[in-house]
């Protein structure tokens, strides 16, 4: 399947609505497949894959972003930096600007617009990435520091941990805002994990619009089938999106999950369900990649 050296399969699990089972579906699928794979936990505001991939932290790296370091001797207080700053992290009224680092997104624009080069590269740590492994799954978890406004830079760094070849799973953050865009960006395939509730489908619609804009192929998983009253099949037909898997609304799955266990390790019935889904998914991704190469 994976002959070329610079060829990886990047599959993102996203949902729009939170709590539909992105992490659960990604982990159960990853565990049931025989492939070695890399899992990137991009839900950096609440990373919880590490609960299920047990093991100590093998590597840890701090993630820092640009932060303006102002040379107060050089600065003439012209205010160009503050005028440019979209986040308004710099305040200036004729004297060297005051910086509120927690408001800065680290874009570096202030340094570029400063007419007398009075701004240097400083840095600010916004979070960290931890690596764990169970031998089969290499897990990289992004953890944003509490109080940080935007985790986008951390998600971007996390994406760079993906190896150039092999299978890569991404556990995306919920919602459809910037961190999610960064998690899905340039993935080969998006798995839409959803539920048949009004909220589930409403947020799914927004996610589908986003994934279309990102020009990525997608397929859906109906999690907790039997819980809601909406009709997912009919909904997906409108968008010509395949329904790849249906996971029943079964208390046994939650019992395992609530104890930090995965259902694929406890019940062979579910192991084969997720394995079948995983194999089907890989075929879909292969098909999508080929189509993309042709384009």
């Amino acid at each position, binding site marked *: 399947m994976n002959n070329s050296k610079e060829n990886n399969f990047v599959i993102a699990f996203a949902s729009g609505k939170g709590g539909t089972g992105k992490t659960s579906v990604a982990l159960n699928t990853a565990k049931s497949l025989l492939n070695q794979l890399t899992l990137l936990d991009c839900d950096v505001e609440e990373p919880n894959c590490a609960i299920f991939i047990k093991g100590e932290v093998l590597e840890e790296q701090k993630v820092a972003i640009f932060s303006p370091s102002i040379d107060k001797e050089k600065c003439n207080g012209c205010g160009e930096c503050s005028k440019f700053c979209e986040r308004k992290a710099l*305040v200036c009224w004729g004297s060297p600007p005051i910086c509120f680092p927690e408001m800065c997104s680290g874009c570096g624009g202030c340094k570029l617009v400063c007419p007398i080069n009075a701004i240097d590269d400083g840095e600010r740590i916004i979070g960290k990435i931890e690596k764990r492994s169970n031998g089969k799954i290499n897990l990289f978890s992004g953890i944003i520091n509490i109080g940080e406004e935007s985790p986008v830079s951390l998600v971007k760094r996390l994406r760079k941990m993906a190896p150039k070849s092999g299978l890569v799973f991404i556990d995306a953050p919920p919602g459809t805002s910037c961190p999610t865009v960064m998690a899905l960006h340039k993935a080969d395939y998006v798995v839409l994990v959803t539920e048949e509730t009004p909220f589930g489908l409403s947020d799914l619609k927004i996610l589908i619009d986003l994934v279309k804009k990102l020009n990525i192929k997608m397929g859906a998983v109906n999690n907790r089938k039997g819980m809601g009253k909406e009709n997912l099949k009919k909904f997906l037909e409108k968008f010509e999106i395949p329904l790849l898997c249906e996971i029943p609304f079964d208390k046994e799955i939650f019992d395992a999950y609530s104890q930090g266990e995965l259902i694929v390790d406890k019940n062979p019935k579910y192991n084969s369900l997720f394995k079948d889904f995983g194999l089907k998914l890989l075929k879909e991704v292969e098909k999508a990649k080929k189509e993309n190469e042709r384009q």
Partner: protein
Amino acid sequence: MKIAIPSLGRDKTSLVNERFGRAENFIIYDTTSNSYEVLENSENKSLQQGSGTQTAETIIKKNVNVLLASNVGPKALKVLELSNIKVFTIPSGITVEKALNLYNEGALTLS
């Protein structure tokens, strides 16, 4: 001396605005000329973030000496303090004129 007060309206009979950074207007009273000026704050008000600090910057550039306000956030207060503007706390629900009277009577405390 110039005194600024966040306001809901455009003259001294208007009610004070409980908000600072996202106040619609500021009334600036000049004690030397005994005159009032309206400063519109719509641009800062609609910023995604940084309304408070940007409004502080605007007020500093207007050479204001004293600010009378109900609530000023910590970041904006830091900016105002660094530029030596004195900030006094006023109760909400009063008029701009009443706020100025309270200030003149020395009935207000520093924020």
